[in-house]
């Protein structure tokens, strides 16, 4: 990809950061931050993933084209998750999945074949 050779010092520093991140994730999971538990968990995971992409995968030193490819992947994933969740989030309460008890279909419920 590029002639830029990343030094082992950088790799070890990023590794240390990833270890710290893992520790924070586990520690935070045992604290009660309420709604923010998931935010912290995903936020730290995103930072860790970004460090891996930028330094271990050399994205920081890659041509712009590669960086555009990475951005597109994340953007498209966001479209898929975002627009689908927008459907679920804007449904009335009784149309949410998980509402009510499970009903087992009885033979009368579907046509005889």
């Amino acid at each position, binding site marked *: 990809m590029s002639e830029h050779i990343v030094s082992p010092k950088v790799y070890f520093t990023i590794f240390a950061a990833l270890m710290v991140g893992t520790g924070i994730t586990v520690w935070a*999971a045992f604290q009660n931050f309420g709604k923010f538990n998931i935010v912290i968990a995903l936020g730290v995971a995103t930072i860790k993933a970004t460090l891996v992409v930028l330094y271990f995968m050399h994205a920081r030193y890659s041509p712009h084209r590669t960086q555009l*490819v990475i951005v597109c992947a994340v953007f498209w994933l966001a479209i898929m998750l975002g627009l689908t969740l927008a459907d679920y989030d804007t449904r009335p309460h009784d149309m949410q999945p998980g509402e009510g008890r499970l009903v087992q279909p009885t033979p009368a419920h579907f046509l005889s074949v």
Partner: protein
Amino acid sequence: MHRTGDLYGQFQTLEQQKETAALGMWIFLVTEVLFFGGLFLTYTINRSAYSTAFGIGSNTLDIKLGAGNTVVLIMSSLTMAMAVWSAQVGKKKLVGVFLIATLGLGTVFLGVKGVEYKQKFDHHLIPGRNFDMKYHPTHPMPGDDPKELALEKKEVEEAFAHDPDINAHGQLYFSLYFGMTGLHALHMIIGAGLLVWLIKGSFAGRFTPQYNTPVEVVGLYWHFVDIVWIFLFPLLYLIDRHR
């Protein structure tokens, strides 16, 4: 297309070949993002619908093994990056050393996963006919901590009261657990195969500062598999630990 030395016939220069191989792997990783993404979407919808079941399901996972595996995998990413560096600076022997270390750490990861899967089997938590979230709390196994087991029993009973269909919803959690970690493990096995191929090449002295594309490209794949786990770990293991 024929190959002369390291250069394949459809390319004009080694630089073009390297650029092409790297871009090819990045685009493949994009497809993997969307592939796993479908599972993450399924997970998200199901977790928001069945948070109780997902919570107690998650609590049956061994956080020590999960966190340990996370450390192991991130370490393997470090050794993989060091393998690429070794090739880039011409330290041919180190390339093999770091590749073997990566493979070793990956194998440890898979071994631990196997232990975890066996534990789920013993606890009747594999989705199917025998699935029962109540099984483990009422059937202690050797090595279980009685205090923790009592806590688990209380948790499960509370959950059943809150959500009578919890066995069905719990199966959804475990289906996703096995589906996502299973797909991830499959990717690791493929990665292990690629590493074996690279190790063979490194012993033959194939990877030099002029030609180390295969190491670079497999490295990209390996780091991606690591990133998937970086997200899987909190989403599967750390849902409800703070109760």
